[in-house]
């Protein structure tokens, strides 16, 4: 092991400010900055951020204005589910070619919209801009406006040119598009005890689980942003009496704007893990100041916990004392993962995010134990170094990180948009524990320890 450690020194000076060990240095971690060239950042782009947020809207046409690659790499890679149409699962692209880059792509975009309207009769089209669209100067706002007049449907531009910032900028661009979509001049009559649920993309049906919980305590969900959402449903959002935000990284901005525009207060919540789920349900009931609801919450918690405690304690026994490393997209995920690991008896020894904000890192710092390495916008070399140094048994990350973990003989949990099982609520907590168990306690790790026939 030692030979390996000496071989992996951190050699990029510019990266030092982005890495800290709790208890060792008293420094403010740098974050929310641009990636350093040549550092093999794991980050995606603005467009990616925007598409993640908007793509779950099921009855929309998602049209990517740009060269083919940007569309190819994002076609149907998310596991958002729909209860109705599957239109959103198609990848539409203007497939810009050399001559479009030279002469501009506005006309092609307009024709593309016309064709799609004729073929699909959709009421809503999102037009995403990619890097080169920003450079060649296509005015997608104007094209969308004209198309809207031509077709009497919503055609919403998403300003997601990839190089102006990172994924967070994409979230913001998506939120701006959502705001323009739900914009209304009409007087709104508020629906009592109704909420909008922000920042759940209905991966593997997560939004459905939460809808059910809330229905059982007497709260209706007006709109989910954006899991399994439809155009009509989104338009009802301003009438809700409360916004609850799960993924704050992508949705805090939208919540703040809606508070200002439609006077909807918001609560930051989390349905990840048993503890958070229970706290969240209680907070909602408390917010509505409704004793009957509070009672229903307790019944629900009692019922649902009962279903999962045996299984969870089995996993806990198996996993107690193991060490986890976390490298995920946003701060919210990292924070809830630290808590979830605690629920199954594991300690987080390394934690990082691609786009965490200063206050996320403050929270993280408050949660982790001494000696935990915290890092922002990490690269493979750093992940490798700290996984080994910190003796992690498990890494939580996305597809790109998985093979690295495996090559290091470290277990792995997928925490991205492709997963096929829900992680929210009480069921989700069990799923999470089961997945951790299935990788940490797999017999294959015994095989890699085995001596080879030639004695190595």
């Amino acid at each position: 092991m030692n030979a390996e450690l000496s071989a992996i020194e951190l050699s990029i000076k510019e990266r030092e400010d982005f890495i800290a060990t709790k208890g060792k240095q008293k420094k403010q971690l740098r974050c929310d900055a641009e990636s350093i060239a040549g550092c093999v950042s794991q980050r995606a782009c603005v467009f990616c951020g925007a598409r993640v947020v908007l793509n779950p809207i099921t009855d929309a046409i998602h049209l990517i204005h740009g060269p083919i690659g940007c569309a190819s790499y994002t076609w149907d890679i998310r596991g958002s589910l729909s209860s109705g149409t599957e239109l959103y699962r198609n990848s539409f692209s203007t497939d810009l070619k050399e001559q479009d880059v030279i002469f501009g792509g506005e006309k092609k975009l307009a024709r593309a919209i016309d064709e799609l309207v004729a073929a699909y009769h959709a009421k809503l089209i999102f037009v995403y801009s990619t890097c080169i669209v920003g450079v060649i100067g296509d005015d997608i706002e104007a094209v969308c406006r004209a198309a809207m007049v031509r077709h009497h449907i919503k055609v919403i531009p998403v300003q997601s040119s990839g190089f102006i910032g990172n994924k967070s900028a994409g979230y913001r661009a998506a939120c701006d598009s959502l705001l323009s979509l739900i914009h209304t001049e009409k007087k709104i009559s508020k629906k009592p005890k109704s909420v909008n649920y922000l920042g759940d993309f209905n991966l593997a049906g997560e939004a459905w689980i939460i809808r059910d919980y809330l229905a059982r305590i007497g709260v209706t969900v007006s709109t989910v942003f954006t899991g399994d959402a439809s155009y009509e449903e989104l338009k009802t959002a301003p009438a809700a009496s409360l916004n609850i935000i799960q993924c704050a990284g992508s949705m805090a901005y939208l919540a703040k704007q809606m508070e200002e525009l439609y006077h909807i207060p918001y609560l930051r919540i989390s349905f990840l893990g048993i503890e958070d789920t229970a706290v969240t349900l209680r907070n909602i009931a408390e917010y509505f100041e409704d004793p009957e609801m509070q009672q229903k919450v307790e019944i629900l918690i009692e019922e649902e916990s009962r279903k999962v405690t045996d299984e969870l304690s089995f996993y806990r026994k198996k996993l107690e004392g193991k060490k986890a490393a976390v490298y995920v997209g946003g701060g919210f995920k990292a924070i809830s993962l630290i808590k979830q690991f605690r629920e199954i008896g594991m300690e987080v020894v390394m934690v990082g995010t691609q786009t965490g904000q200063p206050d996320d890192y403050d929270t993280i710092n408050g949660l982790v134990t001494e000696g935990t390495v915290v890092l922002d916008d990490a690269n493979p070399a750093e992940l490798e170094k700290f996984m080994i140094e910190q003796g992690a048994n498990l890494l939580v990350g996305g597809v790109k990180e998985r093979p690295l973990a495996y090559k290091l003989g470290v277990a792995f949990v997928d925490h991205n948009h492709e997963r096929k099982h829900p992680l929210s609520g009480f069921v989700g907590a069990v799923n999470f524990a089961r997945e951790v168990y299935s990788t940490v306690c797999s017999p294959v790790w015994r095989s890699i320890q085995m001596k080879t026939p030639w004695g190595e």
Partner: protein
Amino acid sequence: MSRKIEGVKNVNENPCNMCMPMGGILALKGIEQTMVVLHGSQGCSTYMRRHISQHFNEPIDVGSSSLNEKGTIYGGEKNLKQAFNNILRVYHPQMIGVLTTCLAETIGEDVERIAAEYLRENKLNYPIVTAPTPGYGGSHAEGYFFTVRRIVEGLAKKAEKNYKINIFVSNISPADIREIKRILDLMQVRYTLCPDFSDTLDRPYVRPYTKIPEGGTKLADIAEMSGALATVQMGMTVDESISPGEYLREEFGVPLYTIPIPIGLENTDIFIKLLQELTGGVIPLSLQNERGRLVDAMIDSHKYNFEGRSAIFGEPELVYALAGACIENGIMPLVVATGSKNSTLCTLVQDLSAEKGLDFIPEIVTESDFKEIRGLSVAKGVNVAIGHSDGHYLEEQENIPLVRLGFPIHDRIGGQRILSVGYTGTAMFLDRVTNTLLAAKQKSYRQTMYNKFYRGKEKSEVAKYELLRV
């Protein structure tokens, strides 16, 4: 018979291809101790890494110059040089390959000049190979060959005759590359195979972990490609302008032999015969037996295969080889499609169909997308699809089973281990197709027959209704 859509399409619906730098990364990953830098915005490189690592289940480190707004307006030179610095420091590669993306090309970056300047400024004598690969300039298939050509252009020096054979492989699986190498060794051919990602993109589990995997075509061997006896290039559909073999022929007079990927009996025969002619060696008995076994397998499954009506899609070179393999087994390729622009493919498949006197006419489409492939497949009654994972769309939407091969395979495990070349690989490929046809039949034939023929013990009203429906 075939149709080429030129410049009339405004929407690509469910793409069948990826962009140029993607192919460039794959090619560079097959060169010894090489790191790749993408000059452009961060997102492109992250997306491509993600796609590639999903297929191969390997860590794929690719640097990016992470162009931001400033770099985009004032030029990204500083970013690219910083990227070189950091890559050298962390990875200690023996070579760096630089690819561009749409963004870098649109703002007119001259990576060749920047690289040369970087080397001069730092007094380095170091190989940096550059390949301008704007995503909008072509698909990953062209990006792949073009980058291989740039590698050879950058590294090959005038060399003594060395009587080796240069082998340029198209984008086949690591398992395929290993099989090609096994055959070359069996026939005692001395060769330089490029790009060789059989180890780098399918590495064994070993500790300690190294950031750049072992393996890949040796830089020294590429340097000496100019002195080879001949070049064998699996590139029937590859345009001269992006052909590495063509470069060696023009520049150093190395004779070039262009052959299909050896998938299928005839395609493999072409490969073996050529090797024998070039080296004057013998075809060992074991290889003769492999051929015999393949022929035996073809006979065993011919009746099942003759019920196959296939749609083949993917990179032009692969599609062409597969068309041959399907035709010789009666798995009629009714739809032959690629997302790339490639008129040669049309001509080649047309010629092949004419030569074989087929009873049917394949529909050949280039610059295609899955909307078109789906439409054609349904219209023509295709019952098996052959190609990469994005075709799962056909499986899901139209119930046409998909035999996975090519790139990318992202919804199944083991894309790197799919073996389809040579006599043995072909037999394995054929079994996969035949068994897919059989599985579909066995799953449905009881119900089908029942629906078609069962009219009840005594004729009932229901049966009459059924009769009407059938």
